[in-house]
Structure formats: structure tokens, C-alpha cells
């Protein structure tokens, strides 16, 4: 059973009830852990927890399940899929040694790829808690995770965007207008993905057809997704709808996923259904997952764990299904989980690091809500940091403002900014299309063309009669 952890500092001895308690207290400050009542009571207790955690051998994480194996299928997934041979590279290390190992020059992208299946989410979460932001960036940049469907996402030196053309009533022309805007700003290579205004199978099919028509007509090397419940997408596939990617929000505990209305079998069924359509041209990664710190606490399904550890466990769920895309919607849930720009920034870097370390093609919805203590400057900072860290994709939305979900995320302009300052290119297949269509005048310097391509000027012209 679980043991307790002690650390003596001068005359004072600190005691932590078990590993999960130690993990929570070692976590950098955030409002969700305060809400859950699991965070350190003082800055000093947090620092001591981090020192104690650094001395914990990685092996312990295989023996001390935070949520019992018998009662949680995510725990079972994590332990059953653990690769002992890959773990042999790091099995002698403590959490503190693990940080040194990850940062060492010996550890190359190839080494990380060889070890990833030996790393559990809890090990990744633990080491992230004793890393500074620059450590999280440095190591994540070494994790190369690529995936493919109609183009290739996650190649080193590349940054893709999800074109998110949401509309509060799913108006087809409103959505098409945002798609056009995004394409003409060079966005949309990760996916053209709509959050539908209502969770309705017929509506989802309508939107799938809309995007499929556009992708086919303009021969765009990208994929589409309607972000509806996984069971809806299964119905859509059965009805013959053009489904590229299956979407689902996922969490790191079985109870969280139950509250979302699915289990691992549901995801397997959906993945099989999507694979059977054979719609990918350069790859067959057919799943798209979203995550975010706080979802387990929000669903009252966190089992006393800190929210970052729960979040890392969600990546084990993602990894199982070979997704094309995963992103943390980092500032979406609200200030009760991540209070301000500082907490959102830290969480975004942790999520990206943990996911990449586990081999997940991680992107980030760099975002905030209007009731959080954050603004566009915070988003600029996190976007830049994630760009440096080699983030696979970010969101692209007209003017940063999602008029359906009522939050602010990164804009088409923002994506061009980060591409230009860092030289990060779109997916190669998509970049070729941008040049071919004359959307980019100079794709090496991310200079947009000053004219609208003929193919897109025509439909605009056709609308002139209505003006």
C-alpha cells in the first residue's frame, strides 16, 4: 500500500500522506488545486514538496496507483500499456535525476522516441512539477511527434493552425465566410474544425458536408472535423457522412470520461468506424481530442488528485488511439481552475511538455475567458513560448474572438506573427497549396499576397448581385 513521505528541513519535519498528496503540494500555485483543497499551504511547503518529490524513484509510480487499478480504466490503460523494455533506460532514476537526464545532451529526439512508452503520465507530471518554464520548453522542443491524414502535422520547424469558423446558429454562409477569411490568411492546415451550436446529428452532417465540399472544390490538403460527441460522430458515419476526424473531449479518470458520456470502448469503436472510411491520403491518424486542466475537478471526478496530474493522465487515453491532433484548451474553463495569465501560461507549457514527452501530437488552444484575469498580452506571451517549444498547432479564429463559445483565442493574424518571428512553417502539403493558390506571395517570409486568388474572387463576384 501507499507509504508516506517525509522531509526534514532544519528542526521541522514535513510529512506528506502519500504520493498523490506530495504531487499536489509540489505543484506550482493554481486556483483549481486551492478549490480542491489539495495544494500546499505555503510557498515553503511547496518548495519542500518539490525537494521530496525529486528524491522519489520513478519505479514507485508503477507500484503506487493514484486511482485503484480495479476501479479506474484509465489506471488500467496506463499500467497495462507500460513498456518495461523502454522503461529500462530510466528505471534507475529518481524524479530529480529524470529532469537532469531529460535536459542532458545525451537525450536526443531519437532517445526520447525510444523511451516514451516507458514513461507514465504520472512520471511526466512529477518531473514537470520540478521544472522551470525554460526546462519545459527545452525538453518539449526535443520531442518530435508527427501525425498525418491529408497533410503532415508536427514536423520540427513547423506550426499548424486549426481554422475554427464557429457561428452561433451554424449559418452556412457565416461559417463559409470565416473559412475563406482563414484560408486567405494562410490558416487551416491542422484541421478546419467547427464547434456546432447544437449537439444534433443532422446538424453535424450538414456541417461535415459543408467543409467536405469546400475542401474538395478548392483541393485543399487538410481535413475537417465537427466537434460533436463521439456517439454522434459514430451515428454520422453510419449515415454515410463524410467524416475525416472523430472528435471527443477526454479526461484523465474513468469518472471524468463517464461524465462526458463515453468510455474507452466507445473511442475504439469510433476509431474503427473512421478508419473504415479510408479518407486519409498521407496517413491514417483519425482522432482529434481536446483536454484541459480542471475538467476532472469540474466533474467531481478527480479522486483528490491535483488537476495537472489528472490532465497528464488524459494523454494516456489520447496516446492509445493514435490521434492526428490533441490540444489543451488551456484557459477555457475559467478562473476557478487557472486564475490569471500567469497560471494559464504555466499550465499551457506543462500540458504541452507532458503530452509531447508521452508521444502525443500536442497543440494548444491559447485562450482565456472574460471572467479571468488575462488579456491579449498574456496570449501573445504564451503563444510565443509555445512556438519556441515546438507546439504542433494553435487555433486560428477571426480576430481572436469566438462568437459561439464566447472566449478569446489566437487569431489568424497571431499565427502569422508567430510563424514570422520564429520561422515556423505550415504543414508542407498545405504550404505548397498556399503558394500554388497565390495566397502567400513569399511563403519563406510569410508575406501575404495583395490580391485575392481567382478561384476565391469568383464566388465573391457572384455575391455582388446581392449587395
Amino acid at each position, binding site marked *: 500500500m501507499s507509504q508516506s513521505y517525509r522531509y526534514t528541513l532544519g528542526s521541522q519535519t514535513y510529512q506528506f500522506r502519500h504520493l498523490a498528496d506530495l504531487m499536489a503540494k509540489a505543484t506550482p500555485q493554481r486556483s483549481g488545486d486551492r478549490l480542491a483543497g489539495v495544494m500546499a499551504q505555503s510557498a515553503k511547503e511547496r518548495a519542500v514538496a518539490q525537494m521530496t518529490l525529486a528524491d522519489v524513484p520513478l519505479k514507485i509510480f508503477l507500484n503506487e496507483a493514484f486511482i485503484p487499478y480495479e476501479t479506474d480504466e484509465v489506471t488500467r490503460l496506463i499500467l497495462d500499456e507500460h513498456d518495461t523494455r523502454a522503461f529500462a533506460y530510466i528505471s534507475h532514476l529518481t524524479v530529480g535525476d529524470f529532469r537532469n537526464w531529460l535536459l542532458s545532451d545525451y537525450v536526443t529526439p531519437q532517445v526520447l522516441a525510444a523511451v516514451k512508452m516507458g514513461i507514465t503520465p504520472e512520471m511526466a507530471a512529477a518531473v514537470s512539477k520540478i521544472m522551470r518554464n525554460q526546462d519545459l520548453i527545452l525538453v518539449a522542443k526535443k520531442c518530435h511527434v508527427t501525425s498525418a491524414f491529408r497533410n503532415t502535422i508536427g514536423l520540427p520547424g513547423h506550426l499548424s493552425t486549426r481554422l475554427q469558423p464557429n457561428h*452561433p446558429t451554424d449559418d*452556412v454562409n457565416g461559417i463559409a465566410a470565416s473559412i*475563406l477569411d482563414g484560408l486567405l490568411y494562410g490558416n487551416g492546415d491542422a484541421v478546419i474544425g467547427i464547434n456546432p451550436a447544437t449537439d444534433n446529428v443532422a446538424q453535424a452532417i450538414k456541417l461535415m458536408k459543408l467543409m467536405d465540399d469546400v475542401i474538395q472544390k478548392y483541393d485543399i490538403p487538410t481535413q475537417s472535423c465537427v466537434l460533436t460527441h463521439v456517439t454522434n460522430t459514430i451515428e454520422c458515419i453510419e449515415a454515410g457522412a463524410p467524416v475525416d476526424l472523430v472528435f471527443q473531449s477526454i479526461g484523465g479518470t474513468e469518472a471524468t470520461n463517464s461524465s462526458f458520456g463515453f468510455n474507452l470502448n466507445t473511442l475504439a469503436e469510433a476509431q474503427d468506424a473512421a478508419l473504415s472510411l479510408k479518407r486519409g491520403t498521407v496517413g491514417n491518424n483519425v482522432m482529434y481530442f481536446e483536454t484541459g486542466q480542471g475538467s476532472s475537478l469540474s*466533474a467531481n471526478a478527480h479522486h483528490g488528485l491535483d488537476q495537472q496530474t489528472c490532465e497528464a493522465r488524459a494523454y494516456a487515453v489520447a496516446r492509445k488511439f493514435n490521434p492526428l491532433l490533441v490540444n489543451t484548451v488551456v484557459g477555457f474553463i475559467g478562473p476557478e481552475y487557472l486564475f490569471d495569465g500567469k497560471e494559464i501560461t504555466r499550465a499551457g507549457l506543462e500540458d504541452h511538455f507532458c503530452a509531447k514527452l508521452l508521444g502525443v501530437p500536442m497543440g494548444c488552444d491559447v485562450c482565456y475567458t472574460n*471572467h479571468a484575469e488575462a488579456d491579449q498580452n498574456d496570449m501573445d506571451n504564451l503563444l510565443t513560448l509555445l512556438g519556441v517549444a515546438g507546439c504542433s498547432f494553435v487555433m486560428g479564429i477571426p480576430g481572436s474572438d469566438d*462568437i459561439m463559445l464566447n472566449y478569446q483565442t489566437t487569431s489568424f493574424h497571431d499565427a502569422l506573427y508567430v510563424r514570422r518571428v520564429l520561422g515556423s512553417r505550415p504543414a508542407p502539403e498545405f504550404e505548397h497549396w498556399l503558394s500554388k493558390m497565390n495566397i502567400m506571395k513569399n511563403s519563406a517570409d510569410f508575406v*501575404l499576397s*495583395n490580391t485575392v486568388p481567382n478561384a476565391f474572387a469568383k464566388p465573391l463576384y457572384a455575391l455582388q448581385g446581392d*449587395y
Partner: protein
Amino acid sequence: MDSNCVDKQNNLVDSIQSHHQHGNVVSNPWRDLRRFTDARIGLGRAGISLPTSELLAFQLSHAQARDAVNLPLNIDALAIDLSNILLLDNVTYPMRVNSQVDDRITYLQRPDLGRKLAESGRKTLLHHMNSQGQAADTQYDLAIVVVDGLSSLAVQNNAKPFINELLSQLHQQHSGWNIAPITIVEQGRVAIGDDIGQLLNAQVVMVLIGERPGLSSPDSLGLYLTWAPKTGLNDACRNCISNIRPAGLPYTEAAKRAVYLLTQAKKLKLTGVNLKDRTQDDVIEHQQQTQNFLIAE
């Protein structure tokens, strides 16, 4: 088409194709598409960045949305408004209750307390049930709960007209819904409806709550339906209709969907992920392909 016409057409295409340049700002000719959407499309650019005017317009919208979060509900005005709904069978002044949160700062950081009724509220509801005779015998088909949430403006503007429309559609069904007096909640979250529905012994609870304000939608009303409400249910047990407001999902349409879900919930004795909104299935399936302008030939 004669050559003159062709020339005219080419000029038009040219004007669509070339961006106008004002100083250092490149404008986007497709900005006219904003008649289809409130999305911030066609903003133009200075290099690859936002033009100054758009940057500042965004800052103003953000400031307005931030202010909306902190605007308190005018509960007296709302109570009077709601007591004037004629279609309620038992015209009762709305019951007013509080969550366990006292102020806005706590509300933002303690959703757990926003989900729980204050003791005074519990007493108010129990008192109502006792006044109905044998409390154990009183049963309602539907309890409507109006909660300030993150935008009091949403509730203030949209609760009454929506409930009016909903009740009028329910009456047309002649299905006989026995509806509890409306409850108004201050500093509440969605799940507070579970407590209230249970105390009112309601088969289903409908929570109308102010959604978090967006930059273009400071007054969006959300609707959550929960069958057999009781403390501790999770979100998989609920159905949601979002963005109810004149500029979003209109009252008539929202009420139509709500009535559909209510009727199905009653039939299936459940809400949540196993109850799908299929109100539009027939409409969409029998429609000609819904073409957008990018596809139209």
C-alpha cells in the same frame, strides 16, 4: 454577353481581387461578408498584424465584457417581470433564493459554493412545499429556475420573453404540465437546479442561466434540462440549449427545441447524452443541399 459587359465584369473582378491600400493598412475586399456573421473577418492588416483601429476596437469589446461579468442582477425588476407571466397555471410571485456565495469574487473562484443553496433558500422552498398541503404529495412536472450566472444581463433581458414563448408552446400541446413557481437564484451555477428540483419534488428541472459574456454577446442565455434532479448529478445527465437571445437562437426556435426535449424526457424518463436533440432532423434531411457561397456555381 457583349464585350462591354465582359469589360465591366472584369473590372468588378479586379476590384474584388485587389486590396485597397490606405497608408500602411491593407484592407480586405471580402469584409462585406460580415453581413453573414458577427465574426471579426476581413479585418485587414498592417503587414501581417492587426490595423490600429481593429486592435483598439477589440480592447473596447473586452472591457465591456469584463464589466458585464460584474454587473449585479436587478432581482426586484426581474421578479416583477416574471410574476407577470400569465400562462403560468399557478400565478405565484417568484421565489428568491441565494447560493452559498456572497460576493462576485468568491463566485468566480468557488463554483462548488455556487452550486449549493444557502440555508435560507432551502427554507424558502420547504416553506412553499409545506404551504401546498402535504409536502410529500406535492409533485411538479417541471421546475423553472432562473440563475444570474456570469451574465445577469442575459437573464434580465431574455428570461421573461423566453419563458412566455415556452409556456405558450407547451399549452398548445395540451399535455398538461404542472409547473412549479419560478425560482430566481443569485450567484448560482447550473447544478444548483438539482437542489431546487429535488426540494420542489419536480420530475424535471429547467435552469435558465446567464452564460459567460463573449465580446459580441454579453447577454447570452443558456438552458439546462435535468430529469429527476437531485444533489450530485453530473453534466452527462443534462441537455443544453445555448445562446438564447434575439441575435442568437431566437426565443421561438429555442422554445421549440426545449419543448421537444421536455416531451422526449417525459417519455424516456431521462435527459443527458442518451437524449439527442432531433428537432431539425426532418427539416435538414428533406432540405435541398444547403449550399454556401463558396460552393455555389
